């Protein structure tokens, strides 16, 4: 197995019939989201936040599914609106996009380095099985030292998709070209993205 290239990803997204297509619904900005060998996915609007309860802990042998559910609070934020993640806080989120993998493709979801560099872990259970359908659950943890605003709709993670490999003509020309040692996050360069998210969120809210 090898990574799908930019061209192969676009081809996989356009395959007919539907059953054999890699579906990413919606793809708001294909030019920005489909990279040399990955597809960026966005943060959704729904979250599960752990409640403070009088339980002593999580014991898979002792807790029913219902009890585990009750230990979490559902939070919905509007598109383009932030949810704040404080240091050490763990929240379940999901991709905005609904994904469906055909039988011949599998993949991995991994964080984007821009977020990793401020201490955000995005996913731990990263394997996507062939045939998977749904929004990917993201295990969001702030391992940094300050609160992070996560805007619903921001590009939070990337998919690496495996089936066949091909060299890409799309050389990487992004923000981290030629790093020499640890690089400070360039999240500030995403300010325009965030502004766009807020603008769309305002439009949805009629502002």
């Amino acid at each position, binding site marked *: 197995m090898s990574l799908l290239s930019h061209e192969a990803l676009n081809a996989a997204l356009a395959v007919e019939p*539907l*059953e054999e297509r890699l*579906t990413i*619904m*919606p*793809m*708001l*900005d*294909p030019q920005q989201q489909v990279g040399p060998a990955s597809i960026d996915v966005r943060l959704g*609007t*729904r979250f599960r936040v752990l409640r403070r309860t009088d339980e002593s802990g999580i014991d898979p042998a002792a807790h029913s599914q219902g009890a585990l559910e009750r230990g979490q609070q559902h939070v*919905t934020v*509007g*598109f383009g*609106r932030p949810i704040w993640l404080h240091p050490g806080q763990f929240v379940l989120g999901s991709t*905005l*996009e*609904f994904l*469906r993998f055909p039988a011949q493709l599998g993949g991995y979801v991994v964080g984007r380095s821009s977020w990793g560099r401020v201490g955000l872990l995005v996913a731990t259970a990263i394997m996507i099985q062939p045939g998977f*359908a749904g*929004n990917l659950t993201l295990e969001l943890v702030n391992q940094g030292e300050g609160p992070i605003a996560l805007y619903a*709709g921001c590009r939070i993670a990337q998919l690496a998709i495996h089936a066949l490999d091909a060299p890409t003509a799309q050389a990487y020309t992004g923000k981290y070209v030629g790093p020499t040692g640890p690089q400070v996050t360039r999240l500030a360069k995403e300010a325009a993205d965030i502004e766009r998210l807020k603008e*769309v969120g305002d*439009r*949805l*809210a*009629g502002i």
Partner: protein
Amino acid sequence: MGALDDDFQFVAASVERAARLQRRECRDVLDGGALRGLALARHLDLVYDAVEQRVVDRRAEYQLAPDDTVRADAILEMRQLVWDVRGFQSNLAWLAAAQQPPLDLGTTYFLEDAARALVASQVEVTVVSTEHTSYATSSDPWEPLISAWGGGIPAGEPTVVIVFIPRREERSGLLHPLIMHELGHAADSRHGLVDRIWQQAGQRKRFPKRFSAAVAEFAAATGAGIADANDHVTRRLRSWIAESLCDCVAVRHLGPTYLYSFLAEVAAGSMDEAGPKHPPPRQRIKLLLQNLDADRWTQVLTEADPRVDGWVRSLAAKNVDYSETDDFLTWAVDELRAVVRAETGRLLGTRVLAPDVAQLSEVTALIEAGIPPAQLRNGDAASRETIILACWQSALANAGGGPEALAVAPDAPELADLLPAALELSAVTAAWTAP
């Protein structure tokens, strides 16, 4: 100071306390950086301003009261006001609903978008899940009180629309299209649509004569005076016209979706009962079908579910005799259907939904594959009206088709998450790609 004075001061202070207690929750919303319910909270704050102003005015009038009869009246009014203001606490649940909407984000976006188009560009919709058995609405509910006792609602303030949904249907996405009918009422409050239809009714050839005959008949049957009979018939007919108008707004905006939702919710409860405010469901179904046929939905209806289509058309075709005033009202609503349709067309403009078979087919294929159909192959957002219609058709088919499928389709488990997700993602896609 006499006993009456003590009574008055005691009761007036009680009114002020009741207002003060409730104002705190408005302030929490206004000062707390809330994103939703701000206009609602401001309106409520104005209500409490108005109540306090009324107490101030009444205190001043009390000082000048010439005798105990006037003083006793003032106390009586304050006592009534205590109960009225205490009753306003039900509004606080509306504030809470604005903060924690009972509907999913996709449906919320859909309704807010429609409200901005139909009611006003500056509008705030709050959906409240209640114990009421059916859907209802209220538009700027406190405007009369704020205007009467306070300084009125400031210019530029958003219209506040409260939509009530039955608690049992919170997750019935296929019934929420009924809210479009409720937004029709809000649009009427804002734009005076029934007033315009009423004016045109008076100019129709046969209408004045039949109206006068109905008034006379009602007066003779009940012993009421002509003026009272006139008020009675007018009030009922205006209500029926409003219902007919709101049905027309909803069905022309949503196509067959509204017919299906209407049948599942309303037609199960009654068919030939003429209500004080509502025409009999059978007549409403007939008018819905006429509008759908006129908007070229006939083939889509037939192909989607021939049994449902045949059943609905047989319901509409049955002639029922209504007695006395109801006979006139059903005639009048039929007589005015073209006027209602024209007013609806003016209100909706380009939002009148036309059949788009290609889009419906593409969206249906995605639903059948279990994919929320938010975006079309060309990158455009799928129309939310088409999404809901395709979901209705899919639910009917999955439930085996026919009238019994209509009854159970709103609970289709395969659509419980898919429909809200599709509406949300479609709204996001449309807003993202908007110029």
